[in-house]
């Protein structure tokens, strides 16, 4: 074999290798990997990676490998838009997972919707996300599905007559949680003694808590992120305010206990995921996550893990042609039909109705788990 033939063969082999790679299924992942929202974004990215690695290890989807194009949207609206544009127009992904915060989804979602690319949020729980358009999906259970159950369970357990409310009013997620709480309290006819607010970055809540204490409520309803909620609990106990808390989705993080220790005893929280849920799918996820990342998974990782399984189930039913617009449309068509049973339990989509009255994007159709905090841990509430 002379040198020229060798070169030719090598070139041919390279070409073959390249054409094999062309069968990859490129999925965009736009999550907050730095900045304040990274405490949610990083476990989410891990959840995607874990699921994709497992799927690829089993031979991929119809012989094609999942390839994740991971971008950091920093938890910022502007950055989320930039990253979405890069993933859609430059990386030419089939669909996008993310962004992390509802705020960012409100900004970047319309970009994907206009480009007819699926934007699949796994952690956006604010109201109105899926109303933005038919290409917006999420498997994160909305506050409006969880909170009525949380509130009525806690009210029954503690025989609550009146509550005080505190929330972060400069964040789409906590504000939307507050709106839902407000409606739930009206529906369940529970009087509110006072409504207090704070802004992101606040670490001193004693002024508001002192005021709450003076109104003598039976419980404190709080729509806030875990960090703030934990500090709130510690400061409430420090002021001699001993009533239980009732929390929104932001409480769902092991971070809550690192600060609050036992200050959060008796708190009621609803969650789409239970780490102690004994189903094989969940136990497998918890163990695989621990083995791969050396840390405990949280709800956000579980939802991301399930979201990747949902996408994989949809991709399995379509034939990838290589025509990007057609393939993206096929993904969009296949996703709503997916029903799986994953780490977060049985899952299917429910189509939402847009502001114009037409059918829009898709929300999660899933039942929440109710937890109570005992001995500094989330314990599945069983009625006692």
């Amino acid at each position: 074999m002379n040198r020229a033939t060798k070169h030719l063969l090598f070139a041919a082999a390279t070409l073959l290798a390249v054409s094999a790679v062309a069968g990859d299924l490129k999925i965009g992942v736009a999550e907050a990997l730095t900045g304040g929202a990274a405490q949610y974004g990083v476990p989410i990215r891990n959840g995607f990676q874990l699921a994709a690695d497992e799927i690829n290890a089993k031979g991929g989807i119809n012989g094609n490998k999942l390839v994740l194009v991971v971008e950091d949207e920093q938890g910022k609206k502007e950055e989320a838009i930039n990253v979405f544009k890069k993933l859609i127009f430059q990386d030419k992904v089939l669909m996008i997972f993310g962004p992390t915060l509802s705020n960012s989804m409100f900004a970047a979602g319309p970009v994907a919707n206009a480009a007819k690319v699926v934007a699949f949020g796994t952690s956006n729980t604010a109201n109105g996300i899926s109303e933005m358009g038919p290409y917006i999906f999420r498997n994160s259970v909305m506050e409006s599905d969880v909170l009525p159950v949380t509130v009525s369970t806690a009210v029954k357990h503690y025989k609550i007559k009146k509550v005080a409310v505190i929330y972060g009013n400069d964040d789409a997620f906590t504000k939307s949680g507050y709106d839902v709480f407000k409606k739930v309290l009206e529906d369940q006819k529970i009087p509110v003694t006072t409504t207090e607010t704070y802004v992101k970055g606040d670490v001193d809540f004693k002024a508001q808590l002192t005021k709450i204490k003076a109104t003598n409520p039976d419980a404190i309803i709080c729509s806030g992120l875990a960090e703030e909620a934990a500090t709130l609990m510690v400061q409430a106990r420090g002021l001699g305010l001993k009533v239980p808390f009732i929390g929104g989705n932001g409480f769902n993080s092991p971070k809550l206990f690192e600060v609050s220790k036992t200050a959060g005893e008796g708190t009621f929280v609803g969650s789409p995921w239970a780490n102690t849920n004994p189903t094989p799918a969940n136990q497998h996820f918890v163990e695989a996550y621990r083995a791969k990342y050396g840390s405990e998974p949280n709800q956000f990782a579980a939802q991301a893990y399930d979201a990747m399984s949902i996408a994989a189930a949809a991709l399995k039913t379509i034939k990838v042609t290589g025509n990007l617009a057609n393939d993206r449309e096929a993904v969009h068509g296949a996703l709503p039909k997916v029903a799986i049973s994953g780490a977060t339990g049985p899952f299917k989509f429910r189509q939402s109705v847009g502001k114009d009255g037409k059918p829009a994007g898709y929300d999660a159709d899933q039942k929440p788990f109710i937890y109570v905090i005992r001995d500094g841990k989330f314990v599945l509430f069983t009625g006692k």
Partner: protein
Amino acid sequence: MLEQQLVNALTLGSVYALFSLGFTLVFGVLEVINLSHGAMFMAGSFAAMTVVTRFKAPLAVGILAAMLVSGLLGLAIDALILKRLRARHAPHLIPMIATIGATTVLTSAAQGLFGVEVQRFPDELLSTREFIFGSVHVRALELAIVGIAFLLMTALFLVLRHTRQGRALRAIAESPKAAALLGINVEGLFLATSFTAAALGGVAGLLIGLNFNSVTPLMGQPILHKGIAVVILGGMGDIRGALFGGLFLGFAEVLSKAYLSSQMGDAVAFGLLFLILLVRPAGLFGRVLERKA
């Protein structure tokens, strides 16, 4: 409820004052708005946390580590950035922007080194002792913050008033050129000031990190904004101003949250700040600078 709110205001005000001490010192001497002070605050917290968790050192060593690491970082920023800008007579805005850059580098480095998640001090370090006077609850740590804020302020004030170095610093604040002509080691004192201010920032970060038991790479940002307001209100560069400005902001914020609405806390605090500046444009303790020409 009022007594408790007054105590709340005193502790919050002391937190602001503690942060603003170093911030205002740098401005007073170097005439630089050093926006990396928030990063010094963060670095102090992380330094202390590292020595107490990794090396199981006692808290006193943690305080020293906070002062040393933040101080050296402040020194490095001065030597690497501010000194060069001084040598080129860069206008005021340039060092301010440069310190924003330094902040970005330091917070990103902290995110890389320590991760993005909130870090905690070990339980045994945190004193949960609390004092109850009638209806008022105060934690020991909060009392310590109030005490240390007053103590450091007094110490700094006395040093500036009654020591040779203090007089030299005040001479520099008046006119660096004239001070140099008098044989004062201006560059040396600039470096010493940057070190001291950053070290004070580091201690503030440690105490506040302990108090709220939350240490993150971004912890310096929200308090930096309040710190700027405190320094402007107190009179740029005035040590007493930092204390009174901090307390003023604390009281305005807490009392408006308590008696108006919690939405109004910042609005009232900053509205009052605006009104005071209308009456006293140089702040509570500031002098209106005359043209130095």
